[in-house]
């Protein structure tokens, strides 16, 4: 197999990998703290405060009404769940297929999975009317002796997201254990104690490596079908209803594809930040942006195809309700948003066909952000153009997000940023041992 060059600026030494990665972890400047304080501040002001107000007053604080009982909270929930899918793709699928280029970026991709899932789970809590009874939807012993309804699509969601959250946190943690040991060896005092506990006293014996390798492969094998099932299940929340525009068999692949699409774009954004602000230029280079770009083009084409098919099915059905809904989506109030989504998700990614775009980090950053703006709108459009055009014309309505919803949406991004900023100071953001695996092996035969 012809290997592309993994490192743009020459191969680092083993020692240098340790130092570069751990440096990003333990050397914290004032700008980091300022950034963290800002994101925490935005989270509190834009997310926590409106949420508390909403819990106090009722969900009426949001802009939803009788015709559109689902709104931005749910569309954001799907968006964040979607964003979580690429991490699994990079870490699990590419682990099984033994791609070397994934090794320097998969840790942050996994972190993205974990944190966007956390944000998504928070959105479920923001969405429900009576947060204080949300434990009734968990299969746990309770004083009523009544367990949840496992025939409900919402319960599939509860089970899938809990499983995904558990599995992906174990997945990222297990992969980091050897690196926690490396941080332990490079630190002293309290930090050494903490990392001794976090690394379980990892020494890197052959037995440990062997067991980790096997366990990691099993995690990967278990997580891949899980990830596919999670977003399929999320799509069935919609597809099992009878609402025109939601009641579609194509929804599961549509959502899974869209999820991986927006997630991969999200990874490009995160990679850009890691390169620029943590100094990982040496480890994240041309090959990554090139491959991710190609992946994005492929995904964008699948996405476009499914999107066209979705409209076609509605139109071909000839059902007056479907056609009314299509008119509203394509030419109604939210039409500009719809066409913006088509522009950003179907046409802008085609620019990446040019090598000059694909290999330029700045251009890729812009494209990846545009794709995610498009995907955010896609989720919003799915909810807000379908529900107000249901089956009875008398109940045609309209939905526009309230200030509280917009603020909580903004706050969710700050929450994600906060979690990620904490992550880069706790976890080695680039996997130390997997990067070393791609370097020249320490063998006599190849050295001399």
């Amino acid at each position, binding site marked *: 197999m012809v290997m592309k060059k993994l490192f743009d600026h020459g191969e680092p030494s083993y020692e240098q990998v340790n130092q570069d990665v751990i440096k990003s972890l333990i*050397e914290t400047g004032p700008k980091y703290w300022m950034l963290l304080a800002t994101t925490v501040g935005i989270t509190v002001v834009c997310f926590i405060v409106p949420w508390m107000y909403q819990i106090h007053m009722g969900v009426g604080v949001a802009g939803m009404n009788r015709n559109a009982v689902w709104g931005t909270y749910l569309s954001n929930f799907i968006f964040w769940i979607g964003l979580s899918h690429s991490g699994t793709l990079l870490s699990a699928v590419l682990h099984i297929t033994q791609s070397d280029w994934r090794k320097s970026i998969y840790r942050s991709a996994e972190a993205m999975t974990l944190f966007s899932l956390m944000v998504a789970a928070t959105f479920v809590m923001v969405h429900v009317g009576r947060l204080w009874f949300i434990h009734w939807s968990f299969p746990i012993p309770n004083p009523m002796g009544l367990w949840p309804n496992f025939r409900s699509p919402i319960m599939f969601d509860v089970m899938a997201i809990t499983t995904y959250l558990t599995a992906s946190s174990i997945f990222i943690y297990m992969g980091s254990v050897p690196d926690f040991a490396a941080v332990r060896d490079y630190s*002293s005092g309290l930090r050494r104690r903490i990392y001794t506990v976090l690394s*379980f006293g990892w020494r890197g014996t052959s037995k440990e490596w062997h067991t980790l390798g096997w366990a990691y492969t099993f995690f990967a094998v278990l997580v891949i079908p899980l990830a596919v099932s999670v977003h399929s299940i999320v799509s069935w929340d919609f597809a099992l209803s009878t609402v025109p525009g939601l009641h579609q068999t194509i929804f599961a692949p549509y959502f899974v594809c869209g999820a991986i699409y927006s997630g991969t774009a999200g990874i490009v954004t995160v990679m850009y930040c890691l390169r620029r602000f943590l100094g990982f230029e040496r480890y994240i280079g041309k090959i990554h942006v090139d491959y991710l770009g190609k992946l994005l083009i492929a995904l964008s084409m699948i996405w476009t195809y499914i999107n066209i098919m979705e409209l076609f099915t509605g139109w071909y059905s000839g059902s007056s309700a479907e056609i009314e809904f299509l008119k509203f989506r394509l030419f109604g109030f939210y039409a500009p948003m719809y066409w913006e989504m088509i522009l950003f998700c179907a046409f802008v990614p085609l620019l990446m066909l040019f090598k000059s775009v694909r290999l330029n980090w700045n251009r890729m950053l812009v494209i990846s952000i545009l794709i995610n703006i498009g995907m955010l709108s896609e989720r919003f459009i799915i909810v807000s153009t379908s529900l107000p055009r249901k089956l009875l014309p008398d109940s045609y309505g309209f939905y526009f997000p309230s200030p509280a919803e917009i603020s909580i949406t903004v706050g969710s991004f700050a929450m994600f940023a906060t979690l990620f900023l904490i992550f880069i100071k706790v976890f080695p953001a680039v996997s130390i041992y997997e990067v070393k695996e791609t370097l020249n092996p320490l063998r006599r035969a190849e050295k001399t």
Partner: protein
Amino acid sequence: MLSVHNRPPKIQAIAKQEFREGVRVNVSVLEALKPLRKSALLGIIGIVGIVVGLKINAAYSTHLKPVQPIEFSHRIHAGENQIECLYCHSSADRSPSAGVPSVAKCVGCHERIATVRDSAEIAKLNAYWQAQEPIPWIKVHDVPDFVHFTHKRHVLAGLECQQCHGPVETMDRIERVADLTMPWCTDCHTLNQTDNGLDCYTCHK
């Protein structure tokens, strides 16, 4: 260029001191947790304390056995004097609520019973009678507002009052013996194969 770390590289120093000289690193997790021993112990003591405290609180709580405005004794009335439950709680077989007797009903008897007419508790009763005010009894068996419970159906079905209210005729002060939770209701409905007994709308409203 904005960089989150602009301090001199600490990592070099660490590498020189601790890595180069091959300093032994402790890999034992217990060892690393040692400084936490005191706080862990305190935490365990705290949790145990809270649990024990809650138990003690529950044991001595008057929530299930409130002090009533008048020390009315069911033991004397229903036990020793064998007054029928339905004599005072007269609407139990006719209406959803069993009914609390009016002050007039109490006074009606106590006017004529010479032995107890002068006791302190009867004086309280008389005070309410004089003031023409109802006695503010504290409800012991209180089901939530969303529950539709009717005494009538249960009494007519042949249930003894004691089955839910406990041995009232032995209690000086009324105490709640059943926990009034949903399984408490549904278990009985299942056991007795009641008509639509497990339909939510039988009890919920």
